């Protein structure tokens, strides 16, 4: 009998733990790790969360299985109701969307994210865009950021292409401070900004100044891994710990819900090999 979980399952669990019970919670699209984390939370510690599915805006759906495309009837089966696109974003703008999840090809030290394009003045590499993430990063109560691409091995010239960067080429979604250091609080947004960042190397929070800080490692990662793969030096929590692993119940929920292992598409091949005792 299996007594291990995969890294994907570990990461889903870490994201799930950031969801409080009773929270009105929304995922976007293109985020199977987050979608699974929301279903795990709803079925374990957060039964009263309001789970709003990305793209379909179904409320508390029970999908038969996860698909790699978010706007699919699989994803809102069993929903008790559906919102429309305007209503969902109104909930955020009126302070009633408590938690959302954002990512980026670049994430900076203040939690700003870039999913629009790489390059300084012209677009060198066009990214797909952020959906509603820009609006939501300002309005939603608390954000959980995630990326499964923190680790950036040096190329043959010894150069690393960092994902966790000093400064984003383009700020698609807002973190705790602008590039010039102006704090988000000056802008009068109703959302409090990023609270957690879950990556393939560890779990981070943000210190009082809004700067990224290492909060927990995985059993198989080290502070040195984090430092080498980050363009700047994140703070390190005084209570730095090792993340706890998901229970068998959590792992079973994920495996039942994602028989095609769609969530592994977010992971690099080497991370798919990682496993943890549970």
């Amino acid at each position, binding site marked *: 009998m299996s007594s291990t979980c995969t890294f994907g399952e570990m990461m889903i669990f870490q994201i799930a733990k950031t969801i409080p019970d009773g929270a009105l919670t929304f995922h976007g*699209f*293109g*985020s199977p790790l987050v979608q699974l984390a929301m279903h795990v939370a709803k079925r374990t510690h957060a039964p009263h969360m309001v789970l709003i599915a990305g*793209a*379909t*805006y*179904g409320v508390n759906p029970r999908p*038969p*299985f996860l*698909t*790699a*495309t*978010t*706007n*699919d*009837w*699989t994803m*809102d089966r069993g929903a008790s109701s*559906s919102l*429309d*696109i*305007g209503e969902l*974003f109104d909930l*955020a*703008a009126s302070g009633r969307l408590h938690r959302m999840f954002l990512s980026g090809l670049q994430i900076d030290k203040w939690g*700003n994210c870039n999913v*629009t*394009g790489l390059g300084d003045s*012209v*677009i*060198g*590499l*066009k*990214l*797909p*865009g*952020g*959906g*509603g*993430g*820009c*609006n*939501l*990063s*300002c*309005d939603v109560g608390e954000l959980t950021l995630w990326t499964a691409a923190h680790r950036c091995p040096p190329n043959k010239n010894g150069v690393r292409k960092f994902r966790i960067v000093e400064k984003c080429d*383009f*700020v*698609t979604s*807002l973190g705790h401070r*602008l590039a010039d250091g*102006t704090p*988000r609080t000056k*802008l*009068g*947004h109703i959302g409090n900004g990023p609270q957690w960042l879950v990556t393939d190397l560890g779990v981070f929070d943000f210190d009082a100044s809004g700067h990224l800080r290492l909060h927990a490692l995985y059993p198989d990662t080290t502070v040195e891994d984090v430092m080498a793969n980050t363009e700047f030096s994140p703070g390190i929590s005084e209570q730095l710990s090792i993340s706890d692993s998901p229970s068998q119940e959590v792992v079973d929920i994920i495996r039942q819900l994602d*028989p*095609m292992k*769609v969530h592994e*598409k977010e992971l690099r091949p080497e991370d798919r090999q990682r496993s943890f005792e549970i």
Partner: protein
Amino acid sequence: MSADQKTTIPMSTSVYTDDSKLIPLSDLVSLVSDGDAIAVGGGLSSREPMAALRELLRAGKKRLHVIGSAHGIDIDMLCGGNAVAATWESYVGFEQDFGMAPNFRRACEDGSVEVHDSCCYTMVQQLRAAIAGLPFMPIRSIRGTDMMKLHPEFKTMECPFTGQELVLVPALKPDVAIIHVQYGDEQGNLCIEGPPVADLLFAQASKKVIATVEKIVSTERLQELGGVSIPYFYVTALSEVPFGAHPTSCYPFYAYDRAHTNLYYTAAKAHDTFVESYLNRYVLDCRDHAEYLNRIGGPAATERLTQWSQGTSSWLELYKA
């Protein structure tokens, strides 16, 4: 006083009252002009008006501005067919299924498509301004992000009630909304089953609405099927086009054709041969939608996609393709 004296209604009010608006697909796309701003309905892998977009490409439409929230093969194909001048989308890609949108990326990176990336709520508020006949709507969000740089047309104001800074986003009134829905009647009443994405907003905000529908039914039958989502007077014209969203899904009729989307994606990624290997074969060289359906494999191919409703395992099977 006679009924017609001084009682004519103004032209171009975007109210369409013909008794029958059913026209062939080729006539439908002639309602789109080169340079138009088009709002494309559906989203991601769902209910995108693909047959109408293929017909647009066959008709050689050019310099379109595309407006939308989260899209995929629809906008990518229009970019691959060199029909797009500017993008006001909030996302164009294939999510975790295949990743980035190859033609869209290239067109943005080589400058042939102007990038005015939007974000969903910004677009919603801009459409709402058009729907309410207002010059703008206020939003609080996006300040502090670089979205402001992509949109010099946005203005800011100090709120006279609270003193806080607000962003004023101007009304967005697409020339044509192009949507595909499950059911319609001859008069143009439309019924959408499942998530409407932004289709209702598009229909209300646009100067014209052209629709393809899986099935034309009577007005009475529309009520039984869940009622009218978009009243007829918004709708300029419509065509009955079964499998008109293929390869995106149009439940309950058919699921997403992942295999064909994979074929598309692979062709789009191999830039140099995209026109030859995909665009000519499945779009430009097809006489019409019927020929397209034959080229993708005919009834055997389309029949397979209707089997999602036979149970979870049949449904799951479609995604393993």
